[in-house]
């Protein structure tokens, strides 16, 4: 098993003929992801990396049975693309797009949940179940199948940690980048719940960063519901308050959202928190051994 995506995933790419969309479709197909369809309005009949292109999601789903979608359209059009996917019955929607206005995401979030779908992102690298499906922009080759469930708000920092895990012989069940924006579809807690329930995930790594209180919420959830060993790293210990650190969500406001608070909350929940990404594999082995 694994969570959210696997070899049964039939992936649709929204914005497939764009620069990003076509590049990453090729990458995903090369990785072995079952990419069944793409959508770009007006480009029906074209192909990208051997994947047929349709005008609408509805049509693409009807023709190909796509059950997951990844979105590479510009920020201005991303909310519409999410609504189109959900309304067409796509159960898992991964929005890579960066820069979507917060006020657009608030109703999107409510709608996706009310309709029983799941959104990952926006402003995220996507997710990967090594050896089965890469649904995102992460470099596939650094991953290895295994039993570590990884969830992160970041992109390259995740790759950094994954690379270290793989080199330490710790393969991954699924690695999920939930995105760095203030309003995202899936939270740490959502992913933790899935990892806890997944028999193939035996330990968990959480890569957090400053801003918001998702890590604190995760700590509460871990204390109450997670039985598997958990290790964490929180980026931004040196970030000054009130400044946005790249990610729209990475800002310490009014004294809340600091790395210190998050680390304290996680440690109080029994999570081993690494001082640097390089410590993660050793801490994880320690946690697994102690479990």
């Amino acid at each position, binding site marked *: 098993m694994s969570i959210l995506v696997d070899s049964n995933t039939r992936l649709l790419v929204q914005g497939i003929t764009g620069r990003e969309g076509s*590049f*990453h479709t090729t*990458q995903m197909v090369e990785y072995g992801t079952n990419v069944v369809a793409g959508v770009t309005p007006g480009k029906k009949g074209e192909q990208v990396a051997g994947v047929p292109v349709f005008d609408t999601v509805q049509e693409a789903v009807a023709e190909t049975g796509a059950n997951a979608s990844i979105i590479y359209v510009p*920020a*201005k059009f991303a909310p519409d693309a999410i609504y189109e996917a959900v309304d067409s019955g796509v159960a898992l929607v991964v929005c890579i797009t960066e*820069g*979507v*206005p*917060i*006020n*657009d*995401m*608030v*109703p999107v*979030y*409510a*709608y996706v949940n009310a309709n029983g779908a799941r959104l990952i992102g926006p402003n995220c690298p996507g997710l990967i179940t090594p050896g089965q499906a890469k649904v995102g*922009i*992460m*470099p596939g*080759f*650094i991953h290895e199948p295994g039993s570590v469930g990884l969830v*992160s708000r*970041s*992109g*390259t*920092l*995740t*790759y*950094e940690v994954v*690379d270290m895990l793989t080199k330490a012989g710790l393969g991954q069940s699924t690695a999920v980048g939930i995105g*760095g924006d*203030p*309003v995202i579809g899936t939270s740490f807690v959502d992913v933790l719940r899935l990892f806890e329930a997944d028999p193939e995930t035996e330990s968990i790594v959480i*890569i957090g*960063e*400053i801003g*918001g*209180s*998702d890590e604190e*919420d995760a700590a509460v959830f871990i204390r109450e519901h997670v039985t598997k060993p958990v290790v964490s790293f929180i*980026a*931004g*210990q*040196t*970030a*000054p308050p009130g*400044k*946005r*650190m*790249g*990610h*729209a*969500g*990475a800002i310490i406001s*009014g*004294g809340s959202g600091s790395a210190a608070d998050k680390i304290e909350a996680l440690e109080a929940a029994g999570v081993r928190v690494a001082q*640097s*990404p*390089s410590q993660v594999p050793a801490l994880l082995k320690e946690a697994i051994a102690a479990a």
Partner: protein
Amino acid sequence: MNVHEYQAAEILARYGVPVNPGRVAESPEEASAVAAEYGGTVVVKAQVHTGGRGKAGGIKLAHSPEEARQAAAAILGMDISGHTVNKVLVAKGVAIAQEFYLGVVLDRPNRQVLVMASAEGGVDIEEVARERPDKIVQRRADPVLGFHPYLARELGFALGLPATQVNGFAAIAQQLYEAYMGEDATLVEVNPLILTEDGEWRAIDSKMSFDDNALFRHDESEQMRDFAEENLTELDARNSGISFVKLDGDIGCIVNGAGLAMATMDAVKQHGGEPANFLDVGGGASASQVAKAFSLVTADPNVKAILINIFGGITRGDVVADGIREALAEVEVSAPIVVRLSGTNADEGKDILAKAGLTAVDTMDEAAASVVAAAHSRAD
């Protein structure tokens, strides 16, 4: 993006909020003229993008045009937490009967917009939230339908307002919500919102911040940007697709990815150094991006050494290395450079760098230790 108090007040007035009369002045003479026009007492307030103006002496009462002139003269040019005062707001004095707080913010955990109010107005609301949370009442707007009038009334009743004042308060709460949504704000705050002795509502101090992601549809907000208040380097960086935040240390950082950039800063600190900046070159890391990053980092005279930390993902290590090489041919960099290259095509990248006289290390920790050592040796 932030705007000044007087600009936030202008916006809120457009949404119907009864903003206390005031006019901005850039010289003591202008301030005196506004005071003369209003007559009676005025309040002269520093317009800077930072809190703590009162404690810093940036807010003064003036009972005559001459006093207003003197107050403005004292405040203009003042430095408040590193912000130079270039403008003051000259606001009409008003007899305050009661002070309230009213604000609209994003409730991140619930992914909804929250309207908050407190009868403890005029003070630091975050302190109230921490110490007397029961003094704050709040209602969440429906994510799709918006902030229903009944929710605004509930807030008014929860504050214990007399029945005759509830509708007036509720109207302002809805106007603030409309302004939040209409302007794509991330914060709208009136503190204090007051009841005058005549039973009128007045917004005395207004504050707004905007969602940078939504500025594309708000030219008017964008035009309110006060470049004197912005770090021009940061703005310049953003225009090149680079996230840059100036810090106080001496180690320049160039990293791909925001999370990795923060982790890199943390690693520098752990190894005894102080980062001079946060810098995320973004996804591409082309030669021109890297060159721009170099020029941003080297523009800071404090920078003693530079750490380049790249995890090649979709971005290939050899391409980044080429970018670094080309950038170094364009931009003159005197500070020592430590490169860490990992991930896709890292080995090819290292070869390229070696030819350019740069040695790349494999891990972030190594790189951090090495750059801190380089900076310290230069500092000695």
